[in-house]
């Protein structure tokens, strides 16, 4: 069985073409980064605001905990059933899926950013203000750099959530590596399913690893001990 999976993975025919591995890999990455970008666009400013001002704290804490309980597959189906009649063509599959990916990615990013800003040493914040930094300078020069480790862990867990949910979304017709898992099951082709699953796992591990490297580059070594 393992050799069958190996055969499937090493067959060049499976890698090329519009429905090949490379194409699906690119689609998967595009969708994932698009979703993360949109989620960050909403969650980062919101998290900074809440962390900086302390307003709406309770909402964030409960949102992050509550969202974990929501089954992504169910939400995905609901979104598709609601939106499918209103959309046409490719968008009919892509739009509901991306909306779900974004919605599910917001809580981890939001709580990471919020917690990161919120845990900044009050003394450092006070000193920053006392030395004559404006509110914006305190945010960009002290709060955000100090929050980066937790911001990164929020982004990383959001990205893992997105990659996993994007895989599942193949069942509603979304492109990406999930296709091999779903299509393989439809044709009772375990080699294709398992090969696809290996690729998905590899993708998740690689993306997380790359984020980890980026984190190392971006986060000040002075914060490494506090991590």
């Amino acid at each position, binding site marked *: 069985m393992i050799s069958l999976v190996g055969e499937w993975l090493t067959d060049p025919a499976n890698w090329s073409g519009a429905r090949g591995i490379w194409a699906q890999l690119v689609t998967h990455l595009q969708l994932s980064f698009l979703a993360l970008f949109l989620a960050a666009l909403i969650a980062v400013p919101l998290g900074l605001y809440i962390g900086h001002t302390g307003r709406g704290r309770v909402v964030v804490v409960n949102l992050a905990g509550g969202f974990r309980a929501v089954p992504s597959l169910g939400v995905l189906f609901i979104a598709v059933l609601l939106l499918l009649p209103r959309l046409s063509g490719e968008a009919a599959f892509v739009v509901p899926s991306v909306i779900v990916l974004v919605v599910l990615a917001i809580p981890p990013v939001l709580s990471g950013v919020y917690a990161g800003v919120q845990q900044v040493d009050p*003394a*450092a914040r006070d000193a*920053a203000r006392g030395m*004559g930094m*404006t509110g914006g*300078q305190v945010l960009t020069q002290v709060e955000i*750099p100090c929050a980066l480790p937790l911001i990164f862990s929020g982004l990383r867990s959001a990205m893992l959530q997105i990659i996993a949910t994007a895989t599942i979304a193949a069942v509603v017709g979304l492109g990406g590596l999930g296709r091999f898992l779903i299509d393989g099951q439809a044709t009772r082709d375990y080699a294709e399913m398992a090969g696809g699953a290996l690729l998905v796992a590899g993708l998740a591990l690689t993306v997380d690893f790359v984020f980890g490297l980026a984190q190392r580059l971006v*986060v000040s070594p002075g914060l490494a001990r*506090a991590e």
Partner: protein
Amino acid sequence: MIRFDGVTKRFEDGTVAVDDLSFEAPAGKITVLVGPSGCGKTTSLRMINRMIEPSEGSILIDGTDTGSLAPAELRRGIGYVIQHAGLFPHRTVLSNVMTVPSLLKWDKKRARDRALEVLELVGLGGDYAKRYPGQLSGGQQQRVGVARALAGDPSVMLMDEPFSAIDPVVREGLQDEFLKLQEALGTTIVMVTHDIDEAIKLGDRIAVLRQGGRLAQFSSPDDLLAHPADDFVASFVGRDRGYRALSFKTAEVPIHHEAPVRLGDRLGPGEEWRLVVDDAGAPLGWVHADEVTGPLSATDLQLGGTLATLGGSLRGYLDAALSSPSGRGVVVEGAELAGTVRPDEVLHVIQAAPRATGETILSPEEPA
């Protein structure tokens, strides 16, 4: 010079943290705000750089109303040191110290040179500049905090419990260094502490605040000890204040000649306590003739006993006299033996000295 003019702070919930506070912190001196918790001392300090806005009254720095300046501009001209240093963990020591020069838009090289200079000044020269705050001890972090406040070359510096979070042994050394530094720089300093001993040690002027943010007494430390304005100040200043007040009194005390002996000498018969000095003439300890046989060795020395400095405070003389095993207090000039003093004679001088040397500058009964 910093002037508080009828300053009141009333918080939104109606509590009055500071009530009609008026005093003048003289230029180039250290003024200490002291009092029990809840007396509004930190609030008062933070109103100077407008971290907290006064509800009434005004605060003037060298004649300029702080309310007329933009808060961020005002703060860049005022050094600010807080209890836990508040260093930025993500920036190196050097970059922490360069914060205010950068905010003032100094050019990079000037900011860097200045930062290295003040780091040297607080005793953190060398490769400390490249470290991160997390790699420093609490005392070192506080030194960086002071350096960071000095970097912008401020004429005024605010310090909120700067030494409280540091262990007592290190604290004492830091206080001494700080006094020297202040003397050299001549910065006008307002400091907050809850520790009356620290206030007396460091302050040129002390403002004692009571609960509700009212000024109980504003005076020099010796006057505070000699003439507490009321029961509250008296009990806050605490015990031993008569003795501690001697720290601020100097007077001529009779110095007796002391014929020292050296290690290796033999003591003659009939001699009781003899003082041993080293080759440079610095006192080492006392020996008692009855307990020594043969040449004097280091193990015969009785240590203990403090040294008074020639021309120093009466407290120093009295303590040296009282703590000496021989009953003769050792007085040094530099490190060298200058002679000894007798307890009865020191007490006699104390008795003859004028009962107060300072005057109360301001107390609630007699407003300025």
